[in-house]
C-alpha cells in the first residue's frame, strides 16, 4: 500500500517536472514563503529536480527566525524576574538572544516551562495564583488563533496573573516588503498553504494585482510544491499575475472565519520589527486595548535593550531571498545546529537548519552548486 502510494507520487512528480521543463523558456526566480515548504524542498531535493532556469529562493516564513532580537532579549529579561513563570513553545528555548538563550536562563534558576498550547499556560496561571505567568506569543497567522483564544479565555475567566508577550508577524506585509526592497529578484511566490487555511487568500489578491506578481497558494508535500511551481511558471510565461490556489483541499478563499473573527477581537495590526530584516509597517499583531491587562509588554517595563547580533551572520539576506545558507562563510563551520550563531540555524523551520540537516554544507565551494553566485544573476 505504502509502496504503491509512493510509486504513484513519484510518477506524478516526474510528470510535473517534465511539464515544468516544457513550460519554461527563460530564467525565473520563485520564492516559497513558508519555512515548512523550505524544509520539504531541501529534504526532497525539489530545487534540484527543476530545470536550471528556475531558481527557488527561501522566504522569511520561519516565525522563530524572524522574532526580533529586542523581543527575545525582552523575553529573557521578563523570565528572570522573581515570581515569574515564563512559558513558551519549545522552538524558542535555544534561540540566541544577546546573552544566551532561555535554556541557559533555566539552568541558572529561572522558571521557564515549555508548553504545547498557549491554553496550557493559562492553566498553569490558574494553578499558580501567586505567580505571574507569561506566555511568549510568537508566530505567523497559523498560531494566532491559538494565542487569541488563550487571551480570550484568560480575560473571560478573570485569570489576572496571565499575560502574553506578543510578537506576531504577518505574511502579506512581508511579501510586500520583499517586493519593494531594492535589488529584489523574486518574480513569483508560492504562498503559505497553512497560513491561508486560517486567513484565506483575499489579501493576497490585492498584493498580486498591485505588484503584478503571481502568487500560488501551495501545500508542503513534494507533489504540491511541484504543482505550485508549474502553476507559477505558467503564469510568468504567459505574463499573467493572479492568485491561484493549488492547495484546494485545505484552503478556501475565506479561510477559517471563526478563527479570524477571534483574532480580530483580541489583536490589532501594528508595525513590527523582523530579525534580520528590520521594521515592516503593519506587519504584526499586538494586543488590543480591551485586553491590555494581559499584555506583558505593558505589565513588565523593561529598560532600554542593547542588542548584539553576531556580525558574520547573513540571515537577514537569506530571509529576504538575496542569499542562500551556503553563501554564509560560517555555515556548517562556526555555525551548526549544535552551536548556532543565528536564528535561521536554530529553528526546525529555518533555512540554514534545513540546508545543514540535509547535508548541503558538503556542497559549499562546489562550482556545481547553483546557489553559489546566485546574487550576480
Amino acid at each position, binding site marked *: 500500500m505504502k509502496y504503491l502510494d509512493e510509486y504513484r507520487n513519484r510518477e506524478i512528480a516526474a510528470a510535473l517536472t517534465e511539464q515544468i521543463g516544457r513550460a519554461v523558456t527563460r530564467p525565473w526566480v520563485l520564492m516559497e514563503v513558508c519555512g515548512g515548504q523550505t524544509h520539504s524542498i531541501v529534504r526532497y531535493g525539489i530545487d534540484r529536480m527543476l530545470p536550471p532556469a528556475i531558481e527557488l529562493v527561501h522566504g522569511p516564513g520561519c516565525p522563530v527566525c524572524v522574532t526580533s532580537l529586542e523581543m527575545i532579549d525582552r523575553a529573557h529579561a521578563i523570565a528572570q524576574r522573581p515570581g515569574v513563570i515564563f512559558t513558551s513553545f519549545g*522552538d524558542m528555548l535555544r534561540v540566541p538572544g544577546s546573552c544566551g538563550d532561555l535554556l541557559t536562563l533555566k539552568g541558572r534558576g529561572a522558571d521557564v516551562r515549555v508548553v504545547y498550547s498557549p491554553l496550557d499556560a493559562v492553566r498553569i496561571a490558574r494553578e499558580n495564583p501567586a505567580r505571574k505567568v507569561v506566555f511568549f506569543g510568537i508566530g505567523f497567522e497559523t498560531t494566532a488563533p*491559538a494565542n487569541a483564544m488563550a487571551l480570550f479565555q484568560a480575560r473571560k475567566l478573570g485569570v489576572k496573573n496571565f499575560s502574553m508577550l506578543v510578537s506576531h508577524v504577518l505574511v502579506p506585509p512581508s511579501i510586500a516588503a520583499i517586493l519593494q526592497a531594492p535589488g529584489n529578484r523574486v518574480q513569483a511566490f508560492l504562498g503559505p498553504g497553512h497560513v491561508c487555511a486560517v486567513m484565506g487568500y483575499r489579501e493576497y489578491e490585492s498584493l498580486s494585482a498591485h505588484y503584478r506578481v503571481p502568487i500560488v497558494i501551495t501545500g508542503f508535500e513534494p507533489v504540491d510544491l511541484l504543482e505550485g511551481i508549474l502553476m507559477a511558471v505558467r503564469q510568468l510565461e504567459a505574463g499573467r499575475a493572479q492568485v491561484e490556489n493549488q492547495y484546494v483541499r485545505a484552503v478556501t478563499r475565506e479561510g477559517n472565519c471563526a478563527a479570524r473573527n477571534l483574532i480580530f477581537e483580541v489583536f490589532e495590526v501594528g508595525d513590527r520589527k523582523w530579525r534580520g530584516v528590520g521594521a515592516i509597517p503593519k506587519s504584526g499583531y499586538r494586543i488590543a486595548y480591551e485586553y491590555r491587562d494581559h499584555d506583558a509588554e505593558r505589565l513588565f517595563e523593561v529598560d532600554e535593550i542593547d542588542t548584539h547580533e553576531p556580525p558574520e551572520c547573513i540571515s537577514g539576506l537569506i530571509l529576504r531571498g538575496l542569499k542562500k545558507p551556503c553563501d554564509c562563510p560560517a555555515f556548517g563551520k562556526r555555525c551548526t545546529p549544535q552551536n548556532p550563531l543565528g536564528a535561521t540555524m536554530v529553528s526546525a523551520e529555518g533555512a540554514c537548519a534545513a540546508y545543514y540537516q540535509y547535508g548541503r554544507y558538503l556542497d559549499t565551494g562546489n562550482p556545481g552548486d547553483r546557489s553559489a553566485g546566485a546574487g550576480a544573476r
Partner: protein
Amino acid sequence: MCLGIPGEILEVRDDNGVRVGKVRFAGITREVCLEYVPEAMPGEFVVVHVGFAISRIDAEEAARAYRLLEELGQTAELTADVPESDHDP
C-alpha cells in the same frame, strides 16, 4: 509550528464553555481545542496547530501528511513539553 499536524478526533467534550477533545497523532494522544471546527466529530481527522484544530481533512490525506511531517522532523511539538523520561521508553 507553522505546519499543522493531522490527527483523529477520539472524543469531544465541553470544558468551561470551550469545545475540546482528545486527538490521536500516530502513537500520541493530546488534548486539542476544537472551537474553530465546530462541526468536526469523533472519527474525523483535523489539522492541528499548537493545540488548536484549524481545518478538517480526510483520513487518507491525513495519513500521508502525517508520514511526510514525520520524515521532515516537524512533529516534535507534540512531545516538546513532555520531560525526556516520559516518552520513548
